[in-house]
């Protein structure tokens, strides 16, 4: 059962009709509907192509947040072998919004860390919808230190609406945890590559995505604030999220132009959720490629390159 986004409604209708026809045919042997159904399929395919040919920023936000989109766990399960989850911040708790551990990628050991949103009500609650608390960032810091100590490259998979805005999270130093995580990203002497696989929400994303190379899936977003939040502050109306999404320049394509994103990973037609395997394979290829690029560099170079990259950011704006 496909979950359709609001702008995919017309597509849902056509695909629904085709499905209905086929169901009728199955019930009634004499009916031959294949021709009509095929015509509908063709129509649906054309519509899908045109819908996704030029997604508005707001539509991209919706695709990036699609509930069926492959999440961190899907990527880890499919791309890595011997994944050994490591838990806890050694301080307070284990944050299930952040998963991480040692694993092999193409046979080589790496440290993989990412936000996991969950894929049904139970797991979403357990994962806190991918919104990490300070413990999540402190776990990440610990894992990055471990990777640095043993020379394992670090791969981060970013998919979070943002850090969790809660009472306990604030009391336990949410801002300090994020700041230290970003700092750790800048300190390590091993290759650090990051892929924004869905939502790159504000500080919660930066804490993982301050990397030598940042790749973004074609329909992922990365922003200082959610379009809804921005709309309610600047437009005084949360319903202006379309305008805000436009103004924030949060698409992978915009960020590539601004130099924040180094590489865009193409998604299957209709978004990563329509063909998860292909999307996951493309991400795997991109990660291997980025790590290969960095494999010859010394630890000091990796660290100073990373710093120089961030110091130099913002020297170019978008064309008017």
């Amino acid at each position, binding site marked *: 059962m496909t979950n359709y986004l609001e702008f995919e409604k017309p597509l849902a209708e056509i695909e629904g009709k085709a499905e209905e026809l086929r169901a009728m045919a199955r019930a009634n042997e004499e009916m031959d509907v294949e021709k009509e159904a095929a015509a509908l399929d063709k129509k649906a395919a054309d519509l899908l192509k045109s819908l996704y040919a030029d997604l508005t920023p707001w539509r991209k936000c919706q695709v990036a947040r699609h509930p069926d989109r492959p999440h961190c766990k899907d990527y880890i399960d499919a791309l890595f072998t011997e994944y050994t989850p490591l838990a806890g911040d050694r301080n307070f708790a284990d944050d299930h919004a952040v998963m991480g551990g040692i694993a092999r990628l193409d046979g080589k050991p790496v440290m993989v860390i990412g936000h996991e949103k969950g894929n049904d009500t139970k797991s979403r609650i357990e994962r806190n919808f991918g919104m990490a608390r300070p413990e999540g960032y402190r776990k990440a810091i610990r894992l990055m230190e471990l990777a640095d100590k043993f020379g394992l490259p670090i791969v981060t998979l970013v998919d979070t609406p943002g850090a969790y805005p809660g009472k306990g999270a*604030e009391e336990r130093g949410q801002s300090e945890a994020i*700041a230290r995580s*970003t700092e750790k990203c800048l300190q390590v002497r091993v290759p650090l590559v990051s892929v924004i696989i869905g939502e790159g929400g504000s500080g919660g994303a930066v804490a993982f995505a301050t990397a030598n190379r940042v790749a973004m899936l074609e329909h992922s977003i990365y922003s200082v604030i959610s379009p809804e939040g921005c709309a309610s502050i600047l437009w005084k109306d949360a319903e202006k999220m379309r305008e805000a999404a436009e103004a924030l320049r949060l698409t992978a394509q*915009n960020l590539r132009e601004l130099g924040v994103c180094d590489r865009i990973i193409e998604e299957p037609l209709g978004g990563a959720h329509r063909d998860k395997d292909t999307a996951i394979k493309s991400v795997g290829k991109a990660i291997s490629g980025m790590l290969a690029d960095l494999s010859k560099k010394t630890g000091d170079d990796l660290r100073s390159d990373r710093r120089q990259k961030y110091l130099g950011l913002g*020297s170019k704006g978008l064309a008017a």
Partner: protein
Amino acid sequence: MNWITNYVRPTINSLFSRREVPENLWKKCSECGTMLFHRELAENLNVCTSCGHHMAITPRARFQALFDNGVFKEVAVPEPIADPLNFRDQKKYTERLKAAQRSTAEKEAMLVAEGEIGKTPIVAAAQDFTFMGGSMGMYVGNAIIAAAQRAVELKRPLVLFSAAGGARMQEGILSLMQMPRTTVAVEMLKEAGLPYIVVLTHPTTGGVTASYAMLGDIQIAEPNALICFAGPRVIEQTIREKLPEGFQRAEYLLDHGMLDRVTPRTEMRDELIQILRMLLGMEPALKGDLPAPGTPDNAKDGETAPSGA
């Protein structure tokens, strides 16, 4: 005499006189309601003389009170490209910037300076909440990097006064990228072995708290300053319950182990001098020698024992 002189002029006059007195000469404390004479308030560094409430202070006024004899030299900040995203909400970003420049008479939301405090050479940076909420964009990032580079060049500590609503949304992702950029600046200081002291002032929130403002060697806050990542309103909306009294205020953070100290603004200068001179292995500051005439806390210096331990 005609109706203009009899009627219009007095009306106009009364309008002006009504406005002038309370707005320019007297300021009402937003906390206790006491009317405070402007000169007295300025001399007390915008801290209410009646209840001790800390009102906002501009970076320039702060530096004048901080540096010996009020003498400091501004450190040049590289100009970023203006309006990189061609951002427009209900107003154009460039218009908002110009309006802020007009109302504050400052170029941007951060001022960087070098000078001496208690004969201790430092570099200082202060964020201006009155300039678009002190928000952190490319300029603020450049300012912090410039401050760190200057400090490293001169082998001096950096004292940073933070005040911000967070990142500057109008610069989109580039404002977010100031989190790693400013963190690189902090790393430069660390590697050079130079003290980096953060003074968190009201309010310090969002991406600013989650980067350079929480990475100080020593973290001092002004009393009752709001310091947080997510603001209280956002949290109340998320968890649907009332937050405790004083939540996310300086004293609350101190209790939760997030700060080293909470220090009144009027004692901050002495405290900074004391801490810096110890961290730098210098002799204690000579009290009688300091500060030179004209600085606001001149009167009580010399008789007040250094605060803190």
